[in-house]
């Protein structure tokens, strides 16, 4: 097992790098897109709410693999050249954005309505009240779940292996195929995933406990 790690150190670490890179890009991008759709979902206008809701419900109910494959297979045929890493990262972003939209919406919903009303009666516009009063409070509620989303992203980014995305799982598959030592290879790959996800998940649990008390 140690053997697999030392002899394939380069590809494994580069795979882990791509996994993390894809996860980080997808986290940031899906935070932006997710927030936009959360705002659509709580808009005054019904048709805007419908758009927001439709997006979230649609994406939440479709497998990540299907979204990713669609970007890898369809988009380059008709629109623009796109490699596996890009297609995979976009797939991850869109998939995660629906979950983040739900979290952000719940976060905003948890801020007492009186806060918004108070801000409006003090002369702030809706946007001002949202940005200055409601958002900062909602973020406190949302941040811990972002950590969990990141853990999910690291795990989910293994779909990049389906589209030659050079991530950790892809490298693992190639090493397993080259060394014929499937078991040890996937053990090493598993340990590398755990090195990232386990400490994060314990940290998140700690954070959740202490933030909720505060």
């Amino acid at each position: 097992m140690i053997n697999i790690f030392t002899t394939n150190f380069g590809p494994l670490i580069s795979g882990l790098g791509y996994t993390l890179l894809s996860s980080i890009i997808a986290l940031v991008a899906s935070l932006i897109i997710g927030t936009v759709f959360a705002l659509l979902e709580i808009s005054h206008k019904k048709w805007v709410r419908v758009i927001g809701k439709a997006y979230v419900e649609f994406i939440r109910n479709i497998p990540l693999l299907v979204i990713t494959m669609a970007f890898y297979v369809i988009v380059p045929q008709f629109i623009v050249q796109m490699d596996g890493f890009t297609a995979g990262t976009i797939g991850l972003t869109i998939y995660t954005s629906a979950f983040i939209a739900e979290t952000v919406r719940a976060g905003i919903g948890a801020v007492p309505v009186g806060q918004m009303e108070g801000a409006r009666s003090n002369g702030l516009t809706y946007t001002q009240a949202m940005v200055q009063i409601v958002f900062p409070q909602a973020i406190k509620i949302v941040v811990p779940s972002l950590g969990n989303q990141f853990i999910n992203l690291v795990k989910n980014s293994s779909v990049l292996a389906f589209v030659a995305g050079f991530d950790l799982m892809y490298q693992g598959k190639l090493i397993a195929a080259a060394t014929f030592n499937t078991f040890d290879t996937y053990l090493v790959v598993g340990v590398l995933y755990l090195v990232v996800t386990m400490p994060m998940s314990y940290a998140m649990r700690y954070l959740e406990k202490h933030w909720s008390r505060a």
Partner: protein
Amino acid sequence: MAKRIRQFGVLLAGLTLLLLISACGKPVADSDALARAQQTGKIVWGVKADTRLFGLMNTKTGKIEGFEVDMAKALTKQILGQSGKAELTQITSDTRVPMLKAGNVDAVIGTMSITPDRQKVLNFSKSYFSAGQSLLVPKGSKIHSVKDLKQGTSVIGVQGSNSVDNIKKAAPAARVLQLADYSQAFTALKSHQGDALTTDNGILYGMSQQDPSYVVVGGTFTTEPYGIAMNKGQDRLTKAMNKALDQLDKNGTYERLLKKWFSDVPGFDVKEVHP
């Protein structure tokens, strides 16, 4: 109740640990496959379902069809008698070695070249098909042979196939993208993810037959003798396979199956593939 929950929990944890470590139990892969086949009356074959001509899923019937599937059935009858059953399990180039090593299947007949590296961990029968690696490109492509795969080009291959190792040697400047199976790889080529697709000519002719806007170019640059693969140490089954292959060759079954699948493939010479 709490005690029972605890007992059950211990059992469960034990099972999980067992799964994770898989230290105990008698591995299927190490027990004599021929004896098991004779006892159960069936051989569990790993076959391709993504490779036209060799083993391809027929969506109408839900069955896998191809030269290798017919061979597997004929070999099973030859070894186990007329009542012998060939159980077909789907494999890809990526899953076939672990499936053999773990014991998910008894034997693989799946466009698998006999290579020295593989012979270190697997048993092979004698070769039943001679292929050679080549390139598939869209019609009108600037790539005419492996020499045209220069810096900046990318080639699509399949995870676990030795053609990806070969192409790295034959065209070191090209970027190699490895997909999970041939169906995915061909779709990736159609989606312009790479400039060419490389694997053995027989597989490529099958793709070109399916979609004639893609052509095989540049001839072959390796020789790939396909063999039936079994786990290392399954010497009795290997012997039985070799004997059965000889018998199929003698009684004309082999020739008939070869003609059935390959005689009307343009650009393909049936005589060349007979080892």
